[in-house]
């Protein structure tokens, strides 16, 4: 499995994401935001967490207009896998690949702690290593993770099995406790919590390993 992890100015989880993919057995290439094309032969694009472009204007707004993001959108639209974590999730909503938006946390605080999530849908390349309803512990570290979408969009996500993860105890005011959502074909996943920061015993938790291993195994079988 070949993964490209996009690096923006201000990304700070790009290496964490690369390390987690490598540990699961993937080949990882870092991709610079000014590149206009992705390396050929990539199975998966990782859009990492951080504070791309200093969160200027809106979180993810400037990154979403960067040259590489046009290639990432094309990759997704032609059926490719794209995984956005934290700022990466914000970027994916700004590109329109995922619906809704991430607003300032309801309590206005930056929240950095490990929290319980419920796996809502285990029927995807990302979540097949878990079972539906399983509880996992992932860290969150964000100021703008309050997922918002209109009622029709939320109903569409719920009906289509597109809620991947839900907060067991809603930390940020997200609509319907949504922590991560899939695209319609479940090949694009955006989530605020960080599975890549719970992928090594030295992180203090390993619940994220199953996600990266499931992806590598899905791509090898493909």
């Amino acid at each position, binding site marked *: 499995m070949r993964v490209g992890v996009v690096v923006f100015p201000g990304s700070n989880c790009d290496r964490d994401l690369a390390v987690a993919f490598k540990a699961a057995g993937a080949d990882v290439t870092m991709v610079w935001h000014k590149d206009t094309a992705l390396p050929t032969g990539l199975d998966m694009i990782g859009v990492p967490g951080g504070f791309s472009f200093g969160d200027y*204007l*809106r979180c993810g*707004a400037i990154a979403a*207009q960067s040259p590489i993001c046009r290639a990432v959108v094309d990759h997704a639209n032609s059926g490719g896998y794209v995984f956005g974590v934290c700022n990466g999730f914000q970027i994916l*909503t*700004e590109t329109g690949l995922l*619906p*809704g*938006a991430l*607003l*300032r*946390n*309801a*309590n*206005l605080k930056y929240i950095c702690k490990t929290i319980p999530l419920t796996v809502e849908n285990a029927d995807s390349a990302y979540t097949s290593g878990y079972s539906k309803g399983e509880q996992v512990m992932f860290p969150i570290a964000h100021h703008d993770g*309050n997922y*918002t*979408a209109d009622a029709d969009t939320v109903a569409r996500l719920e009906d289509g099995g597109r809620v991947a993860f839900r907060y067991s105890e809603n930390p940020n*005011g997200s609509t319907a406790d949504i922590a991560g959502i899939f695209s319609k074909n479940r090949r694009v996943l955006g989530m605020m919590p960080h599975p890549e920061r719970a992928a090594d015993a030295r992180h203090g938790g390993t619940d994220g390993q199953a996600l990266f291993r499931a992806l590598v195994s899905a791509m090898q079988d493909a």
Partner: protein
Amino acid sequence: MKARVTVMLKNGVLDPQGEAVHHALDALGFDGVNGVRQGKVIMLDLAETDAAVAEKTVGKMCEKLLANTVIESYSIEIL
């Protein structure tokens, strides 16, 4: 020609920052504030000299970048 773009969270979208400012105003004794919404103002200095063309162009800028129309509304004033 200059343009002023005002971006606000749409009505119905919770604005916790506006709420916090509201509480702070209450704490300072400013009674009678029924609501606070916080947004942003973006000033553009444009080469365009035709106001109608400028407004149309700035509208495109808002749709593509300056506002996230999922959660925000915008208004444009040509100055």
